[in-house]
């Protein structure tokens, strides 16, 4: 029988070689695949819309704040042009915070249906002028929610703002009075007969404190003027429309109208206003009005706000020769939560509630447009029908009948961020302390008619401000908003991508998610809505976008000032991050040479930062209450390198552990081989073989396996062309060769006769299945220890698998890129770890087979002498339980060790997994031996 035949016949050698080759191939293959998958994922997701963020003064640290437009400026247009002139620059898109604008919303009102029916003296001429009005014969009969006899009502108005977690009542105000159906009264005068609408006899009406104008009857309604709503402020950012559109791609289409805005010298507000007035003088069709009059190639759908502000400013004297029309793209809808409620109760003379009429509510919603929506708080008395449409559509001209917005560059200070600590997975925790208090939730100082507003009817609510004050510029003439279109912040956010969501500026919101309440308890994650009692953290996208001429007009700049907050630069270099990295870094260096801060954000990734907000609201006594902890997306610099390095390290550790498993397996199988061949070797010695001949006889068999391993190693190394593969292959080969020499050494020696003369009486008496199992294990100590080690290795491998599963997300870090990368290598790594578990399992089978024959024999003897099946089962169980007891510390400590090596914070779980694996092995092995 030649060596090859002996090798094949010796199944244990064949099995060992096969397992080692499979382990080698699997580990190399999995390594290669997981590394390739990791590289691909990291590379594909590491380049966002731009590569370099340029700021005049950048913050320190690896985490970038999401707010890059902060109104502090610092970069001049000359520097912007310098960046654009660099050879490696593809796009350089500047962005600045322009102003905070206070919206002058129309006074809220409550309309109670009190329709008097058709009357030619009041409605005839109106319907004649309105082609889409209803013909007189088709007007319905009069109807009203009020009674002939006036009744006494109490009307309570309140405004509530909520961030989704906390609700705050901004004010609450009540007024009482009697209301009844109105009537038509004909009065004869010198000029003829006039028809007037008069209130019911005895009606007192309802009057809220000034500037609310009280209640008034019209042909269709009884209209009650309500207390003024809290002011709504919006921020405006400036971009270069052309560069920004190029940066955003398809998502930047909304900027196209802004590209057609006139140059600065053609934006005189008076001239623009007069141009539109002339359109009406010359005549304009209703269709043209609805689509929007053409202004230099752009149809201005929202022309009415400009016109109304122009007329108001002209009347109030605010319009000067310096007044500019500022082209704006406004946000479509708002997530600002502001609700206006009016509760209506019928009461008796003593003030006791007789009937609850109902509550009317309106909120700022998705159809609210900054600078456009005029009366978001027109409320309707319960049960009312709006008959005013009988007069026909008054057209868009009614939109925007409000005074010009108040533009201010009193930006509030940004919060102060303090590092709190770093979590196990690298997630950063911070504390955000708002700086200065400013009162922004206040009543307007003057009403629309210019009269002072009674500020005592409600207490202003302190609110955290969120921008630094910029002392640049002079007091400028009131600019007039000129709305060119709308934008959808969600579309901009989508264009930025989820993983590498880089800060695009104030119009790219960075939502905050509430994760812990003020008491520190974890709450169901919910995105906080912007509210009027804000946190001081910007979460609402800017209300409007303008260009840099608009910024100059708002701030009164004429010269080239350093007003650019940040420039987003995309390099010309194409391809993935890995390909473009050298060019991007060269470009960043060139920008730094210009005296600017250039942060390479390619290779970065979004990372959620936990922010504790200690001071959020104040009670009447001025005591501050914390909000809790919110999570907000910041940007982790060089996330690609960190993620790739960390996960590669984890994989290498895993490979190392697999090799240890292979070494143990080789050792166990070698012992098995030696035990099987011992008698054969003895026979050969008896035949006169020399020790050297026996050694050669053994080594020849191992050489067959070694040749197979070497061939597999060479093939794998050539296929993968990696040093790791060569190292793994050589390691396995060395292990195998070592085992061969040990086996040869063992077999060439004669066995030493056991000199122990007699039975040791100190041993425990065999009088039960447990003591029998104990005796068997102590008799075969080597097998017991080998099997216990094997089971321990199996438990440790299971612990390693669990540690790995827990560890991958930790090793990947807290960034969104880390999550993606972890997902991409999870499967290959788990396959590798499962292979480790399989090696551990095979190890238990190989070592378990050492005495299987003997075990079968003595179980047969016991059966023959009348031990019943249950007792035989007990023997098997106790044997395995005792082995398990020895294996437990090995498994648990091994799992803990692997856990500490792979994932320190998952070590405990790894230990528990090792414990459970060993415990589960006991009944399974009992069943298998049966």
């Amino acid at each position, binding site marked *: 029988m030649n060596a090859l035949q002996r090798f094949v016949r010796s199944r244990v050698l064949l099995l060992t070689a096969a397992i080692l080759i499979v382990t080698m191939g699997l580990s190399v293959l999995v390594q290669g695949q997981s590394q390739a998958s990791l590289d691909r994922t990291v590379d594909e997701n590491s380049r966002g819309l731009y590569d370099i963020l340029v700021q005049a003064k950048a913050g320190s640290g690896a985490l970038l704040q999401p707010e890059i437009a902060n109104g502090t400026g610092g970069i001049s247009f000359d520097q912007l042009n310098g960046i654009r002139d660099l050879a490696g620059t593809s796009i350089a898109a500047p962005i600045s915070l322009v102003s905070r604008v206070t919206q002058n919303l129309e006074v809220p009102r409550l309309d109670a249906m009190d329709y008097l029916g058709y009357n030619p003296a009041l409605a005839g001429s109106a319907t004649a002028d309105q082609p889409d009005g209803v013909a007189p014969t088709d007007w319905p009969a009069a109807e009203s929610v009020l009674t002939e006899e006036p009744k006494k009502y109490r009307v309570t108005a309140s405004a509530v703002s909520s961030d989704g977690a906390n609700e705050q009542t901004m004010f609450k105000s009540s007024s009482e009075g009697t209301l009844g159906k109105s009537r038509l009264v004909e009065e004869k005068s010198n000029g003829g007969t006039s028809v007037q609408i008069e209130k019911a006899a005895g009606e007192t009406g309802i009057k809220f404190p000034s500037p609310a104008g009280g209640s008034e009857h019209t042909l269709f309604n009884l209209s009650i003027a309500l207390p003024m709503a809290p002011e709504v402020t919006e921020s405006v950012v400036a971009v270069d429309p052309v560069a920004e559109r190029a940066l955003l791609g398809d998502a930047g289409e909304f900027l196209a109208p802004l590209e057609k805005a006139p140059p600065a010298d053609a934006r005189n507000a008076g001239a623009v206003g007069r141009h539109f007035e002339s359109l009406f003088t010359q005549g304009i069709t209703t269709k043209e009005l609805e689509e929007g009059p053409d202004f230099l190639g752009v149809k201005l759908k929202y022309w009415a706000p400009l016109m109304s502000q122009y007329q108001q400013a002209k009347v109030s004297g605010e319009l000067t020769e310096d007044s500019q029309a500022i082209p704006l793209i406004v946000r479509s809808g708002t997530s600002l939560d502001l609700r206006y409620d009016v509760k209506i109760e019928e009461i008796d003379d003593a003030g006791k509630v007789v009937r609850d009429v109902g509550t009317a509510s309106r909120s700022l919603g998705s159809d609210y447009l900054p600078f456009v929506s005029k009366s978001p708080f027109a409320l309707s008395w319960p049960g009312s029908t709006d008959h005013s449409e009988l007069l026909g559509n008054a057209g868009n001209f009614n939109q925007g009948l409000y005074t010009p917005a108040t533009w201010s560059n009193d930006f509030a200070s940004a919060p102060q961020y303090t590092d709190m600590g770093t979590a196990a997975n690298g997630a950063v925790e911070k504390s955000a302390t708002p700086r200065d208090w400013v009162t922004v939730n206040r009543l307007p100082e003057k009403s629309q008619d210019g009269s002072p507003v009674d500020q005592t009817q409600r207490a202003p609510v302190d609110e955290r401000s969120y921008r630094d004050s910029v002392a640049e510029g002079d007091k400028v003439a009131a600019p007039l908003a000129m709305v060119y279109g709308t934008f959808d912040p969600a579309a901009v956010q989508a264009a930025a991508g989820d993983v590498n969501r880089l800060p695009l500026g104030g119009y790219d919101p960075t939502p905050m998610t509430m994760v812990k309440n003020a008491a520190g308890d974890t709450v169901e994650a919910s995105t906080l809505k912007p509210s009027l009692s804000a946190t001081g953290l910007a979460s609402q996208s800017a209300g409007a976008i303008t260009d840099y001429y608009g910024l100059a007009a708002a701030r009164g700049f004429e010269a080239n000032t350093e007003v650019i907050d940040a420039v987003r630069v995309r390099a010309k270099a194409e391809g993935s991050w890995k390909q473009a990295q050298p060019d991007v870094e060269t470009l960043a260096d060139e920008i730094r040479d210009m005296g600017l801060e250039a942060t390479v954000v390619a290779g970065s990734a979004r990372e959620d930062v936990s922010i504790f907000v200690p001071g959020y609201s104040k009670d009447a006594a001025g005591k501050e209450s914390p909000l809790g902890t919110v999570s907000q997306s910041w940007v982790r610099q060089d996330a690609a390198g960190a993620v790739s390095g960390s996960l590669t390290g984890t994989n290498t550790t895993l490979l190392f552990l697999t090799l240890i498993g292979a070494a143990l397996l080789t050792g166990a199988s070698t012992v098995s081989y030696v035990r099987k061949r011992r008698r054969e070797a003895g026979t050969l010695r008896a035949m006169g073989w020399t020790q050297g001949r026996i050694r050669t006889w053994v080594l020849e068999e191992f050489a067959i396996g070694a040749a197979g391993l070497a061939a597999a190693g060479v093939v794998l190394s050539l296929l993968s062309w990696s040093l790791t593969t060569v190292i793994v292959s050589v390691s396995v080969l060395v292990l195998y060769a070592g085992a061969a020499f040990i086996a040869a050494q063992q077999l060439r020696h004669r066995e030493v006769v*056991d000199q122990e*003369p*007699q*039975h040791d*009486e100190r041993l425990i*008496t*065999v*009088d*039960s*299945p447990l003591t*029998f199992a104990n*005796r*068997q294990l*102590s*008799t*075969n100590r080597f097998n017991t220890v080998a099997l216990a080690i094997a089971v321990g290795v199996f438990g440790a491998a299971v612990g390693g698998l669990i540690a790995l599963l827990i560890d991958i997300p930790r090793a990947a870090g807290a960034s969104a890129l880390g999550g993606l990368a972890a997902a991409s290598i999870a499967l290959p790594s788990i396959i590798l770890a499962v292979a480790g578990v399989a090696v551990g399992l095979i190890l238990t089978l190989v070592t378990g087979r050492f005495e299987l024959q*003997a075990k079968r*024999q*003595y179980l*047969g*003897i*016991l*059966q*023959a*002498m*009348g*031990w*019943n*099946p*249950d*007792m035989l089962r007990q023997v098997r169980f106790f044997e395995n339980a005792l082995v398990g007891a020895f294996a437990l510390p090995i498994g648990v400590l091994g799992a803990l060790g692997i856990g500490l090596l792979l994932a320190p914070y998952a070590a405990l779980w790894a230990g528990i997994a090792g414990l459970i694996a060993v415990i589960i092995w006991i009944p399974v092995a009992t069943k298998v031996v049966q």
Partner: protein
Amino acid sequence: MTQESARQRNRDRSQADAGLQTRANTIVKASDHATPLELSSLTIRYGGGKSGAEPVSVVENFDLTLHAGEMHCVAGRSGSGKTSILTVGAGLTLPTSGRVFWEGDSLESMDDDEIADRRRALIGYVDQGGALIDGMSALENVLLPAVPEGEVEQRRSMAKDLLDLVGLGRRMRHRPEQLSGGERQRVAIARALILGTRVLVVDEPTASLDRASANKIIGILKDTSNDGIAVLVASHDHELVRQSDTLTELI
């Protein structure tokens, strides 16, 4: 295929050693039942079924009635089915067909636990080579059948007596690997008798033993049957065949 023919001969039961018998009477008891073991129409086949191998019938329609105090020898060439008859008779394996009666009760009606309990009380089985359990002394090996009964300590002196009986009184602390083949065989016989068995089933007790050792074993078996214990022995040892009371020769 084997064809069975049985020739039964009565043998002289006068070779008992008086001293041995006297001591044996104190520790063994004869069966109360006249025929403690009966095999009826026994057929044993191997192979066939899922294995695909052609079935081999080693025993066909074998009948045997073993009386108390009778030493019956099953003789025949290797592979003739001697061991198969013994293992079936001891309830360790099931026959292909036919029935086994222990003291008149058919094994068909018993479950595994009941068979184990009855075997402990009735049958002492000694397999070929007298397999002992490693790591345990001769005395401990003899006491193993008492473990299920929880009578290890109670039977310790009896075990020592039995080892004395088989001539191993001075080797009781030795482990199996320190005993010769004949000594192991004798320990196995002592172990088979520890629970007061009524039927001793012994497989090839003298195989690979020298004549002197074989004669010792034969003497022990003969004495055992003289004490009223039925002995069923498989062997092709001429001396053993000669000394047995009845004989079945398998062809």
